[in-house]
Structure formats: C-alpha cells, structure tokens
C-alpha cells in the first residue's frame, strides 16, 4: 500500500515541498499561530502578565458599547474617502506622463517611487516639520505670500485631510508603477482604430484607456483600501489620534487597547470585527468596480 502510494508521487514533489517548507514554517509560526491565538483571545481577558480569564462574549458586548471604536472606524472611512480617489487621480496622472516619450523618464520613475521605500517614520518626521502650525515650512510659504496659517494638524477639520495628503505622497509611487504597467499593456492598435474612427484625445482616454485599465484599477482600489484601513504610523507618530480624536484610526485604537492598556482579549475582539469590516468593504468594492471588458 505504502509502496503504491509512494510510486504515484509526481517527480519533484518532494523537492517542491522541501523548497516550500521554509515559507510554510514561517507562515505557520508568524501568521497561523497568532491567528489561532487571537481566536482564543477574543473570549478571554488577558493583560499579558497574569493568567487568561475566560469571559465568554463580554469583549464583544463591550465592543458594541464602545463609542470611541466606532468613531475610529468612521475616521478610517473618512481617510479612505479622501485618500483612495486622491491616490488614483494622482497616480493615473503621473503614470500617463511617464508613459509618454519624456526626457529623463527613468529618473522621474525613480523619483516618484522613492517615497515608497523611505521609512514611514522618516516621512512622518518630515511632514511634521512641513505641517507645523507656527514654525512649519508650508505655513511659512503661505504667510510669506500674505496668506493666513493653516492649522494642518491642530484642527479637527484639517488633520485627517493632512494625514491623507501625507499618505498619498508616501504611497503614490507604487500605484504609478501599477498603472504604468496597465497602460503599457494596452495594445497600440486599439488607439490606432480609435484615431481612424475620429476619436478625440479625451474620447480615446475615456473609451479606450480607462476601460482597458479596469483590471488594474480594481487592483489599485483593493490594495489602497486594504492599505488605507491599516492607517497607523502617521497618526501614531504625528497626532497621537488627535485633535479631538479626528485622526484616531481603527488600528491605532486597537494598538492602544493592546499595548497601552494591556487589554489583549478586547483588542483581539476589535481586530476580528475590524477584519470582517475590511472583508465586507473589499467584497462590495469588487462588485461595484469590477466589470468584464471583453
């Protein structure tokens, strides 16, 4: 029996498993185990140092009474509403520019991608200096032109848009590359046909480029939504969630519960709920944005 089974194994199967093993082990230790542990935690109270106490569904009961968590969820929504369209528009604009025959194109591609590889902490410090109300470079520029200072990070109205602006600057290079790939995959013949049919530049972009970019657009929307939901570094380092909780993101709130207040079980329950929210939003987005081209 054993012999027969062994003989049916495909050639290279064992070596394939061996090659995949490091990744599988890594995945099991750093993803599988924490995930399973989180499922256990949601039913417990645990402050790291004392033994876990089973409390049933009390973490979820607390979650539904926790106004601050829903405020954080709403803030994350506000961030996404500003950040995703802004990111798509800016990324598309630069991708279009870089897709043309431009002098120094490789240089610009590198420049736009540079913020993506710069540490989020460095970007946060940089923007803190740019946005500072009294001593910041942006307000210095505005006042030198006779304008009044903008309360970038110290006004509840301005803080989240400022954070969204910063996050867009940091990430847009990645999406520029994705759109560039999408643009370069559109066959030139499609444009030739459209030109022969008498389409204007705008019509070619609207009727040819945009529909054929749709698969990449879906990818960008999904990726930037998931990235946007994980907003953490910027508010953590720059605003601490303020002013008036206006930049308190869901992940920052979960982090505070876990690591500032040591409510590991509650933080796990918040994390699980938040993961379900992300899943629902992404599924909904895919239904709305995705459409068959051919």
């Amino acid at each position, binding site marked *: 029996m054993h012999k027969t089974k062994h003989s049916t194994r495909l050639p290279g199967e064992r070596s394939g498993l061996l090659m995949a093993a490091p990744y599988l082990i890594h995945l099991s230790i750093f993803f599988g185990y924490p995930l399973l542990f989180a499922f256990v935690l949601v039913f417990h109270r645990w402050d790291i140092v004392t033994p876990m106490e089973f409390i049933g569904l009390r973490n979820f009961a607390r979650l539904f009474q926790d106004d601050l968590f829903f405020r954080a969820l709403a803030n994350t929504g506000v961030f996404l509403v500003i950040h995703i369209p802004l990111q798509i528009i800016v990324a598309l604009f630069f991708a279009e520019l870089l897709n043309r025959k431009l002098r120094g194109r490789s240089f610009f591609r590198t420049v736009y991608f540079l913020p993506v590889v710069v540490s989020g902490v460095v970007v946060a410090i940089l923007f803190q200096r740019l946005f500072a109300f009294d001593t910041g470079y942006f307000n210095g520029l505005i006042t030198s032109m006779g304008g009044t200072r903008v309360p970038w990070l110290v006004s509840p109205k301005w803080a989240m848009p400022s954070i969204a602006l910063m996050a867009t600057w940091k990430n847009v290079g990645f999406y520029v590359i994705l759109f560039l790939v999408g643009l370069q995959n559109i066959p030139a013949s499609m444009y030739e046909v459209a030109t022969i049919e008498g389409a204007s530049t705008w019509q070619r972009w609207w009727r040819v480029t945009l529909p054929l970019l749709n698969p990449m657009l879906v990818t960008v929307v999904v990726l930037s939504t998931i990235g946007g939901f994980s907003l953490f570094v910027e508010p953590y380092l720059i605003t601490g*969630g303020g002013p008036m909780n206006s930049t308190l993101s869901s992940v920052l709130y979960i982090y505070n519960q876990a690591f500032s207040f040591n409510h590991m079980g509650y933080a796990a329950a918040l994390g699980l709920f938040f993961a379900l929210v992300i899943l629902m939003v992404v599924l909904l987005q895919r239904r709305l944005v995705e459409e068959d081209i051919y």
Partner: protein
Amino acid sequence: MVLLAGGCGTGGSRDSDGEARVRLTYWSSQNPQEREIARILVDAWNTDHPGIQVTVQPLPAGQSSEEVLLAAVAAGTTPDICSNIWPGIVADISRAQGLLALDEFPDFDSLYQSRIPVGLQDRFRSRDGHTYQLPWKANPIMMQYNVQMFRDAGFEVPPSTYSEFLRAARSITADLDGDGSIDRWVGYRDIQPIWHQRYFDYYAFYAGASGGRSLFVADTLAIDPTVSTQVFSFFRDLYEGGHFPRTKFQGSPFISAAIATEFVGPWNIAWLEKNAPAGLEYAFAPLPVPDGYEGPVYTYGDYKNIAVFSSTEHPAEAWRFASYLVSKEADLLLMEKATQMPIRRDLLVDSTFAGFFAGRPEMRAFAGQVEATVGIEEVGSFAEMLDAIAQQFEASAVYGVRSPADATRRAIDRMRVIQEWNR
C-alpha cells in the same frame, strides 16, 4: 567568566581559582546620565564584592520602560534587579508573582523607616500588605520659568496662583515681529491626547489644587468635580487667550525663548546645563494653584523605584545590591550626575548632601517639594482612565468645545464605564 561573556548574567559559577561567585543582572534606565551612574556604582560594587558580581545593562529599547518590563515578565526574561520601576505597574507585576516582597528581608523595615519621609511611607505599600518596591527617586513636577521674561512682565517673584499666572501670561504672550501671529507664549504643553502627557499638566495641577488628593480612594473613583473643573478652566483660559500654542515645536521652545515656563522635573536641570545658551536665567517654583488656596502645594511625584524580580536565583544578594543602590553615596551621585531627587528624609539635613545643595540652590527647591508629592494609585486600568481625562482635557482645555464642568462629568462617566468593563 565564559558565562558572563556569553550574556548569561544570572546564576552562580566557579572561577578559575575555584571560588563560587554569584552573578546578578541589573537593568538601569536608558538615559546617558543614569547609565553612567549605574556603571560607576556597579564597578565599585564588583571591586568590593568579588563574590557577587553584577552585570549592568540599560533597559532594552521600547516605547516605554513599562512595556519592556511587562514583556520581560511575560517572556520570563526579567533581570534580577531593576531600578526604573514606575509604581503604576508594580501591582500588575506583583499580581503575576513577578516581584519579591522586599518587606520579608529582615533589614527592610529599618532601611525603609530611616529612608522614606514619614508622609510617603504608606504610599509604596501594596494592597496585600507587602512592599514590592524600594522607593528610589522622585521627580516632582514644578514650574520652570525664565526669570528675565517674568521680570520684564513686572514679576519679581513667580506667579503662585491661577490669576497671577494669567496676568503674567497677558504680559508675556506677544507678537514680537509684528507679523500678526503670536511668537512668544507664556508656556506650552504637548497637546497630543496621550494619557501619560497628562501627568505633567492635569494630574500635577489636580494634586496642587486639591491639597494632595488622588483621583482614587482605594479603588473607588474620587475625583472632586470642583477641583477638576478648576484645572480644566485654568488651561482653557490659557489656550483660549492664545497664551499656550496649539502646536508642536521642533527643539526646545524654552531655550529659544519662545516660551516663558515649562512644567518639568529636576531632570531638566542637567539638560539645560548642557543645552541652554549662556545668559538664560531660569529658576523653579511650585505649580500655580487656584486663588484662595491655602496649604502646601502638592504636585505629581513621578517616582521611580527599585525592585527585585522573583526570577532571581539569589534573592539575598540581589537585595544587598538593591540596598547599596540607595546608599548615601549612590544618592549623591544620582543628584550630581542626573539632577534627580532621591526619596530620602534626610536630604536637606545630612552633611553628605550639604555641599551639593550649597552649590545648587535650584535643586534645593525640588528637594523641598519631594514630600508634597502624589503618586499613582494601585488601580486597574489606570492608563485607560487617564486616557479618558486626556480626551476631555483636549476637548475642553485645548480646543474649548466643551465646558470644563461638562468635560469633568464626561471624564468621570467614562472612567466609571472603564472600571465596570474591566472589573
């Protein structure tokens, strides 16, 4: 020796001469001054005690020393001794049986009674009747002020009440370059709604305005709404009048003369001595209190203490080393190198320290303040409850969108809910 070089600080070993040695690991604070103090003390100890060798190591890097210590307890990687224990986590670690009850050592009581000021002696005992921390240092929060700016504003002595402080604020706050924007303020606080920032404004000022009362009696919430409202109102007046900026500075606004006051502990003296420009005249005074307040002016003590972890294999030797860390010589070194105040009752009367205070009058002000300090109550979820206050401080004092009385009510309500959730 191989054991030590390999990084295993705890345990016993036998040297080449066959003599048994106890090895202890000691975690000190991370700041350069305290690292230097630890190194000097450990070198001297190791020379004098060849049978008990100590390895010093600064607390591993982390967001805060509290997080690092909790992680170490959870991971079972605690040292034998640590000298930077914030009293707020003693309850958590001792509940997890991570600390030795120091009062079980025979000479603990005599050391404790002789060292600790009478008014503070009950403060460090845990609810179970044991004492898990050896009080080491206090950093009373006081008002550091720019003497010249106050003199120019007509104040030869610093303001001691809220109304005096506001009067000085109106003179000092100014648009110096005439561009229509204020560029000099009376003071500044970090406005981020982060719970531990509130120790240096709300919590310290509440202690001052209430005559040294805490937010809790045992584990029962006991905020005095009138006092809390007074504190919120005071800061609201400062922000509303533009006397405190709603901003974050790059660098120190005090040494660049952009602000006239800061609420700080004595540690700031060492920093100022190194960084302040020549000619910057500064001094320290108790925090302002509400008009009509009488009695000693209390403040937040910001205590850091020494503890011995239950993971040690050599409790008696660890305790001997802990006792050495609070010797007169060690305390003098703490003041000289780090400008921090040891918690000891004879600070201003013992001849060991007389020479130091003669040359450092500003340290005398802090030494006098040590006894009038409050600490952290042994209450579960304290950080989260202080976070509730931070939320209301921001809404009422910084942005003025909520009345001080309403902010107090909301803070109390939220703290009750947090207590209920975590009961």
